């Protein structure tokens, strides 16, 4: 029996043949025992699979399985909102850096004019233009001012911190 005939016989079993071809196969089956035997084997295999998955259960309790799904859903939603807020921060940072630098310069100027002693300096770190340092050597005070919030998880967990 050639491959095409075998596949046609299978399609006949699966109800995938057009009526005219199905009739031809039925006629052939009436005459050929080899066809009948192959069809019976294919039918037996198909029959053996019926209902095989019935009674198969997930080996985890309802609560435990759901808790894992819920956790994953929450994690995904947190990641989405963090990513959205990060995008927003990236947008505002473009404006905050120049504004921060300007404010730092104004502050340094005011301190120098009105309150600063001759032993005080105000400077901007070359490595980080968003950070300003004010030293008052007479008062032994150093003030570091960042014009942006820190970008890490610790900062997210404790958004405000006061150093006495």
């Amino acid at each position, binding site marked *: 029996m050639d491959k095409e005939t075998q596949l046609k016989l*299978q399609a006949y079993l699966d109800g995938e043949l057009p009526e005219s071809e199905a009739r031809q196969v039925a006629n052939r089956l009436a005459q050929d025992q080899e066809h009948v035997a192959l069809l*019976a084997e294919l039918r037996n295999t198909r029959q053996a699979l019926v209902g095989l*998955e019935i009674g198969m259960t997930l080996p985890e309790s*309802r609560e435990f*399985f759901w808790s894992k799904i819920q956790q994953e859903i929450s994690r*995904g939603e947190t990641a989405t909102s963090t990513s959205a807020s990060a995008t927003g921060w990236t947008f505002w940072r473009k404006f905050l850096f120049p504004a921060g630098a300007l404010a730092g310069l104004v502050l340094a100027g005011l301190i120098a004019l009105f309150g600063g002693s001759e032993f005080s300096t105000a400077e901007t770190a070359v490595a980080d233009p968003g950070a300003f340092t004010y030293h008052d050597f007479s008062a032994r005070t150093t003030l570091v001012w960042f014009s942006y919030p820190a970008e890490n998880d610790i900062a997210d967990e404790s958004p405000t911190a006061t150093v006495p």
Partner: protein
Amino acid sequence: MSGKDHSSAEDPELVRRAQRGDMVAFEELVARHRDKIYARAFSMVRNEEEAIDLSQEAWVKGWRRLQQFQGEASFGTWMTRIVINLCLDQLRKQKRHRTESIEEMDEESGGVERQMPVLTINPTAGLERAELRRRIDQALGQLSYEHRTVLILHEFEEMEYKQIAKTMQCSIGTVMSRLFYARRKLATLLADLKKNDQ
């Protein structure tokens, strides 16, 4: 909405509530369909841990895509399609990482199944359901994932050749060949198991 209300509600109602963000309604849907989704994943990947992970992933995906569910098919069918696609992705990835066996190459080139003698005795006749399941499980595990998947989609999902071809991204001819091979090979494996037991 109480838990009792959810357990008595029909699937479409629960889906509508879940689409509005009601997690309790979604949890009820998970409880109702989780065994079927797991069974489908297990039949395809043949590994308990992997099947649990994939069915969990399917539920998370289901929640995220819930707005896309329009109710053309039943919710259970929609979820089953999600898990089938996840399993297929997983199996394709795994296949890329392993060398094809000589047997698989033979299967793909075709012809092996034609040399298998036709079985005149039904190798599953008279077997208890549990024993039959054990033997079929064993035999299914010996098929390549392509052949097993075609068989599962046809026999368990009752998909037509055309739908299987679309799902597996191959031609209808390939589906027919793979299904034919899978059935014949399964019959031979079941006969071998019977012989070994005697």
